[in-house]
């Protein structure tokens, strides 16, 4: 899966916007949106929010978790624990990237949030790598990883699967006699 595809999925997440135009309900295959009243928050998918934002038709209200205090807490938690902590949004990385890139002016302390999200991401990906490493080195047959987001899984999937395949091949070549063990 391409990261762009994951991002595409993330764009289906709902986000609150404050439109500056008036429009009746719009009826889409995915569901009805609106009505849009100027000045009144309304929930729309991220793709529409960004589109409207780019046309300067709305202000985006950042999701509740996109707040320095909350993210700091999560970061601390993430650093403290060995396992993955539950993340407020399954698309936190994608949403943070999309919203911060397109509507940083509507998000208070955008730079801090960017750093914090990056920190959380780094911590989690490091953990993921570490666990993959121990998984391989201990030659485990299965492992359980909770609270991973799609993007995180996606970053490691192709590499991990390929390398496991290779290793399997190498091992079975190396020890043809004992390949049945696996």
């Amino acid at each position, binding site marked *: 899966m391409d990261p762009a595809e994951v991002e595409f999925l993330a764009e289906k997440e709902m986000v*609150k916007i*404050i439109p*500056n*135009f*008036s429009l009746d309900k719009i009826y889409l295959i995915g569901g009805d949106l609106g009505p849009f*009243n*100027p*000045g*009144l*928050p309304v929930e729309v998918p991220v793709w529409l929010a960004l589109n409207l934002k780019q046309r*300067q*038709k709305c*202000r985006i*209200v950042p999701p509740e978790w996109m707040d320095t205090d909350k993210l700091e807490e999560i970061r601390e938690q993430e650093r403290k624990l060995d396992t993955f902590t539950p993340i407020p949004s399954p698309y936190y990385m994608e949403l943070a990237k999309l919203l911060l890139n397109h509507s940083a002016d509507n998000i*208070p302390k955008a730079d801090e949030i960017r750093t914090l999200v990056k920190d959380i991401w780094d911590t989690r990906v490091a953990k993921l790598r570490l666990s993959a490493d121990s998984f391989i080195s201990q030659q485990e047959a299965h492992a359980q990883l909770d609270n991973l987001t799609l993007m995180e899984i996606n970053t490691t999937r192709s590499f991990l699967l390929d390398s496991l395949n290779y290793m399997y091949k190498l091992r079975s070549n190396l020890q043809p006699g004992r390949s049945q063990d696996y």
Partner: protein
Amino acid sequence: MPCERKPMRYGHSEGHTDVCFDDEGKCIVTCGSDGDVRIWESLDDDDPKSINVGEKVYSVALKNGKLVTAVSNNTVQIHTFPEGDPDGILTRFTTNANHVTFNSSGSRVAAGSSDFIVKIVEVVDSSQQKTLRGHDAPVLSVALDPSDEFLASSSCDGSVTVWSIESQTQVAQWKILQKSSDVSNAKSLCRLAWQPRSGKLLAIPVDLTIQLYDRNTWTHVSTLSGDLISQVVNVVVWSPCGKFLAAGTIGGNLLIWDVEAKLCIERQKHEKGFTVCGMAWHPSGGRIAYTDTEGCLGLLEGVSSLSSSSTVQKTNDYDDLFDEDDDRMLDEGMSDSRSPVKKPIMEDDDDDDDLMPATGRPRNRGSFLDDDDNSQGMSTLIKEEDGSSAILPAVGPAVSRPVYEGPMPTQPQRAFQPGSTPVHLMHRFMMWNSVGIVRGYNDDQDNAIDVEFHDTAIHHAMHLTNTLGHTMADLSQEAVLLACEGNNELASKIQCLHFSCWDTHKDWIVDLPKGEDVRALCLGQGWAAVATSALMVRLFSVGGVQKEIFSLPGDVVCMAGHGEQLLIVCHRGTGFDGDQALGIQLLQLGHKRRQVIHGEPLPLSRKSYLAWMDFTAEGTPCCIDSEGVVRMLNRTLGNMWTPVCNTRDSCKSKSDHYWVVGVHENPQQLRCIPCKGARYPPTLPRPAVAVLPFNLLYCQTTTEKGQMEEQYWRSVLFQNHYGFLSSSGYEIDSEGQSRAEKEQQELLMKMFALSCKLEREFRCVELAEMMTHSVVTLAIRYASRSRRMALAQRLSELALEKASQCQEEEQEEEEPAYQRLKSNMKNVNMEKQKKLKKKRNLSVEFFFDDQITALYFLCVTACVTASREGRVNPFKVRISSSSPAGQPRTTNVLDSMTMSSRKPAPISGTSKQGKAPVLKPLAPKPKSKMSASKGNSKKLEDSQSEAEKVKPAPAATPPASAENIENRKPKTGFQLWLEENRKSILADNPDFEEMDVIKEGMGRFRTLSAEERLNWTERAKGDSDPKKRKREDEGQVDEQMESNEGSTKKKKPLDTSAKLSAFAFNKE
């Protein structure tokens, strides 16, 4: 109590604080453990000036524009006052100073430090220092004698020492305090105080008492105490006049003594019982400021009024108490039981530490009990109690002065712009309404106004420099209106930015006459209104033409405009006990100018003021008081105010509020901004609007019934605006209106079904009265299907009334057409009557001879319908409408109704479909029948008392069975009966024409019981020609088939009722 304790307010972060007044008493100056010195204009000052002087400030003193602070970096600093610029370091210690104080002239500063040293420094030349060494523990407090001769200091070593400043030697020393190791462990701050002016007495807080020492002899002269004090005294201060002494204790007690009389004249308790650690007496003596260890600032007002009260002399001989000073320590041990806060001796309670962990400043602590302090503890205690008991009665007269105790007038609330935040804020919303936001910035760099529109289609955002200093604003789709109050040089101005103007001059400015200030303003459609301090309202056109002016009965509070409506709220008089007395006027400008509301009182919650007042988006006045109750004008209830919501109900915490920005009726939305811990939102970060639902304050909204009632009345209330809008010539959303009506009727039907289930039949009828005609028929069906015949009967009567009302309404609408109808019915117009007779003959030929009489009426109605509608063949109509309806003998209205309402689907049988043409022709017939039966019922009593009249209530008629029978055996039963009874009818009413006879006959026949009717039909069956009957039956069956098409299954009553009830309850 004569003096008033103002509520505490947050001053500093938790920890030790100190307070003083400036020389004139204009400002209160506080310091705290957050390292700030704050200068408060008053207790209500929301924006005190803050000067950061260090990490922590232990003590502050102010004199002659010099602010001296003892700071945690071991220095004593000077700042200028009130500017707060640093003015150098006065002196340094090896550790922090605990207390600084000025002498009376302000030339010297004394400071006592934790390094056991007391220093006296000249303010002008800090090199001239005098150092007093001799204490063996940290110095708690220092006090300079008014005549600059002596200095008193208290220390943790348990001693209070008086020093001669000149010689820097100890003059006197008393070991009266408890020893402690550090300031943080000391029981009391032991702030000393010399009597002002003479300096004759030195007051020392010693444990639970205050001891006074004489200056000349250095002997103990008296003790101020009493059982009023239950905790260790922390701070003492003299009044500027030197007559009174105020003390603050660990547990938050504030006491004031008349020193001469040794009377405790005032006693107040800190509202939360926190330790008082700083006190200052206002230079005029009227008030005392105090701070506590939680960083809060409080004020006692009206202290000066005490001075007159304490005249009673106390003649206790205190000489025998003279030696008690050595006994204090033991006393304290014994009095532990009286002071729960205090823990004995060394067991330092950790809870206390938690209270003020940041500072570790002196407070209520256990301390060392000196072994030698024990001699006469008991006796002292007893004496003390004697003293206090002697004092107590003396307090009486002070309290029982004649005081006005009636209701106190309320400060009238000031004028405000709805949707604005207070003027004193630097960044504020000047207006937030449904159109946009006007923000005002008034800080050092900038004085500007930002106008932003919710809908950018109206206009782009604007940024204006606010050179005139506008404080009021309103915003509409056409213009921005700004206004400022005048000052000595400049008159009050109104500025209007008319951005929708099509010429090039988009703004205009108007000066008000000298001395007249704008108080409130608003914009409507094409006009602007300004209320001024001269109790006048000035109207302008939006282009700047001056229009009407008129006077107001009182000071304006706020105004609002919408379309052509102007709403003015002004004071009607003085409110009492926290209530406001507001009056409201609603004016209709535009073409038909009139006053809709004439200054009636505006209802508000108790002890609240008006917080917001505006029109809803649909144009209904709406107000919100400070208690968060939203009220809306109910135009259909004589312009009364109905509370529709309480915003405080949705608040999570007590200090949260909702700041309302708009009310919409369709959809029902209360748009507001949630404010955490405040009444107003800050401008940054940009607050987000939330939507609250309305909730009428109906009883028992937890039950189904209550919920539905609330929903129904809410729907009715929020639908009122349709009527208003259409009556004032606006276009209305008719779809929305019919949707609302449908919703209401559905709710009524649900309630009806619920009451039916609960067997509340009377209530059912009450509900049915609120229904529209067409829904009543549905209700009748429901009732009959659930076998409530009495109810169905009553409902059918009700339906008739409703139908006649309907008819009357229609008559009003289509006057000429109905005129004819009416005359037909009443046989006033003979010509018409004849015409009708012809028609009847025709119809008779078309049908069967022996049916004429019974059919007659239906024919009439059918004809009328035909003539009214102008295109329908009367015969056609007659056939289709009459035959399926169980033929002319639809003696029970229920049947006809049921039949008629079969056509529309059961649910949609509301409002619009309900008025389907099927019903209309039927309506007049039941009406006349009704009137006939009603009008003659009395007379009938006699004639019908014959054998046939043993009938039960007519309601007992089981309509379903009757219907069936009648369908099978039509026409002839009534015919026979009528034949027999014609005579008696005619005998009763000799002047009756044939038509009236039939009418009468139908009425009577209806009242017969089912059995009797059955009898008649049986007889008719026997009598009548079988051939004819057969033909007739066939014909009828055919017709039925035709008209009912596939839906003949409705004949099974059980099935339908099951369906109906399923509908009613599924929807709930």
